């Protein structure tokens, strides 16, 4: 299958630990998005890459959140000094186009629980 994959699927971190979440987009997809989904709510935008360029990071909740996509394919979302309020499902999506109407394909998400 050539869908979006994410790892790990589940992550438990103690408060204060750093975590790194990985996203493998669909091969050839130019655009990559990260969303955060709290329990019982819709996904909320975090950040957007076009190839390796991070064009929008307006949704990152604090400077503890950092995302990169150095070679324009795989992306990593890093959260430093995790807090309980960071507990959520982190979704990655990719899209074939740069702008305009384009379907975003979502991965299964990584559920982060901070204890």
């Amino acid at each position, binding site marked *: 299958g050539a869908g979006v994959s994410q790892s790990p699927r589940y992550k438990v971190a103690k408060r204060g630990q750093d975590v790194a979440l990985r996203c493998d987009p669909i091969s050839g997809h130019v655009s990559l998005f990260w969303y955060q989904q709290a329990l*019982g709510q819709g*996904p909320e935008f975090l950040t957007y890459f*076009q190839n390796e360029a991070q064009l929008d990071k307006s949704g990152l909740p604090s400077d503890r959140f950092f995302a990169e996509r150095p070679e324009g394919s795989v992306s990593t979302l890093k959260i430093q000094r995790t807090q309980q309020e960071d507990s959520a499902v982190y979704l990655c999506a990719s899209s074939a186009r740069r702008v*305009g109407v384009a379907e*975003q394909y979502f991965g299964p998400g990584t*559920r982060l629980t901070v204890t």
Partner: protein
Amino acid sequence: GESVGLHLPTLSVQEGDNSIINCAYSNSASDYFIWYKQESGKGPQFIIDIRSNMDKRQGQRVTVLLNKTVKHLSLQIAATQPGDSAVYFCAENTVLIKAAGNKLTFGGGTRVLVKP
């Protein structure tokens, strides 16, 4: 997998009946709208989309209606099946404003439970 939405509005539907899910969107500048289906433990899955120059679009067993005057979107599912049980989200985008990128703004979601 864990439940996507424990405190979402719920629509209970008898198998074979039609379902209607409603969504109020917030941004009058939004020009592209999508409905997503999310099953427990999975990411959102595209169902159908509609651009703001249309007021109705039909797919296979699904119809999306857009009322820009009152900023309202609805999803109709015909002959609802057990496999339709999931959480449904509407999402909006402003594709004609390039600076906005393609980020989606999601609504709060509705859980659909199909009773056999």
